[in-house]
């Protein structure tokens, strides 16, 4: 993963988020405040707008730059969370000079932990973490087992989908939906949906590599 791969991923993620406008927006309207899609779009476009600058940076520096940019662009709950993710991922990658799949998995895990810390949240609270935590856990485990990028990607796609689906019957105890009690049940979480879309997109890119 170098910074040109990062730019490639970022563009694909932006396209995927834009393609999912209707579902993402609808979910945050139902049990949130309706701005999550716009927030994601603003964030994605800010990052693809950085492409030239990112291409001159190391992966770790590019990820940090992405985190900083998201922090000053997205706002809302998702902004500081995604920012923390990338900044923490960057910090972890900085400590190693090669970049194996396992190192990426460990960095991803560190990113998810940063989200948990910033959001004071766990799995099971009906947030993006219900996608991110199981994905991080499986990613690390599969990487430790030495599985191929393609096998890992195929597995993570399913885990992300399942994670998203698991939010449907949860009570929300974090974020804007936490005031809703029983009324949140039956709805997927918007941030979980965005994460699933982003993970799915990257996994598809890996799977489609020659």
């Amino acid at each position: 993963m170098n910074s040109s791969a990062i730019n490639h991923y970022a563009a694909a993620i932006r396209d995927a988020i834009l393609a999912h406008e209707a579902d993402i927006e609808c979910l945050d309207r139902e049990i949130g405040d309706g701005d999550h899609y716009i927030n994601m779009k603003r964030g994605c476009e800010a990052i693809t707008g950085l492409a030239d600058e990112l291409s001159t940076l190391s992966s770790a520096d590019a990820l940090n730059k992405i985190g900083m940019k998201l922090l000053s662009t997205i706002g809302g709950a998702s902004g500081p969370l995604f920012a923390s993710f990338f900044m923490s991922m960057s910090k972890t990658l900085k400590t190693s000079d090669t970049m194996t799949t396992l190192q990426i998995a460990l960095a991803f895990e560190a990113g998810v932990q940063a989200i948990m810390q910033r959001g004071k949240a766990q799995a099971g609270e009906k947030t993006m973490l219900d996608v991110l935590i199981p994905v991080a856990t499986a990613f690390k485990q599969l990487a430790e087992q030495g599985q191929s990028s393609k096998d890992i990607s195929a597995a993570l796609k399913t885990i992300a989908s399942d994670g998203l689906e698991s939010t449907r019957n949860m009570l929300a105890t974090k974020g804007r939906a936490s005031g809703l009690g029983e009324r949140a049940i039956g709805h997927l979480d918007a941030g979980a949906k965005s994460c699933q879309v982003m993970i799915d997109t990257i996994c598809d890119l890996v799977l489609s590599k020659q």
Partner: protein
Amino acid sequence: MKKFVNNIDHMLVESLTGFATAHGDLVEVQFDPTFVSRKQKSQQKVAIISGGGSGHEPLHAGYVGKGMLDAACPGQVFTSPTPDQMLAAAEAVHADKGVLFIVKNYAGDVMNFEMAAEMLPFEHATVLTSDDCAVVNSTYTTGRRGVAGTVIVEKCVGSLAETGADLASCKALGDKINLLTSSIGVALTSCTVPAAGRPTFDISDSEIEMGVGIHGEPGRRREAMRTADVIVADMVNAIVHDFEAKQLPTQGDILLLVNGLGATPLMELYLIYNTAAKLLTEKGFSIARSLVGNYITAIDMAGASLTVCLLDNDIKQHWDSPVHTAGLRWGC
């Protein structure tokens, strides 16, 4: 959706520019990062800074000025501002007596202000407002939302800061008022986030959303539309129960704020006030101060909120002191 807009992406900048021009004697606006600050930088006082998603006008930029805020950081519509805005605002207005952030309790606002605070090179503190009693507090949730009580906190803390009080006293007053204040809102219609272009929720002509949030978040429950007296009685009861739950007295002097959420005419707000004032007086409260109008809105939502704040002499004095902002002005 029909709105006065040129390009959704420029709406906020154009509106803020208009705001700063119309109130050029009071405020100025900076962009990238965006914040509104007093024209005359104040000296020798704690800098009071608030902020939050746009769409709640006149909150917060409308409360920048003498006797209230030193700066406000407007985020995108219904989206918390970002830490760079708060840092730039703090840098611009601080006067060596520290910075107090007044933050409405929403995950996004809390996290963004928190990250700003972590990076801030000067003394600072935060008052989190959480007056919305529609959302039940529990250790398992993010906690209650900050709504119209925030206006009272900003007014009174702003007044105290103007006297040269220190950061700890300003924070203490803000926390005290937040504790002594309960609010609840009701929506007759949804708001429409401009960039979304359609109403946040669907609601029929025979329903209301009791306990709605100022972002159109669903409230306690969907209820049947009834007469104003019945709706207001439910709201008053929710507030009184909240006072009881907080072990606050349910008598004594109060400030009653009837706030319009955007599209509800003053005629209806005064009608609500009429019922609320009667019911609260019957319960044993004495209405010592009143405020009726659009002070913290949810874009174009038809609806209203009730806020009751228990008054002591301290709060009364700070409520009454001169204020000169675009949204609240008296005594000067």
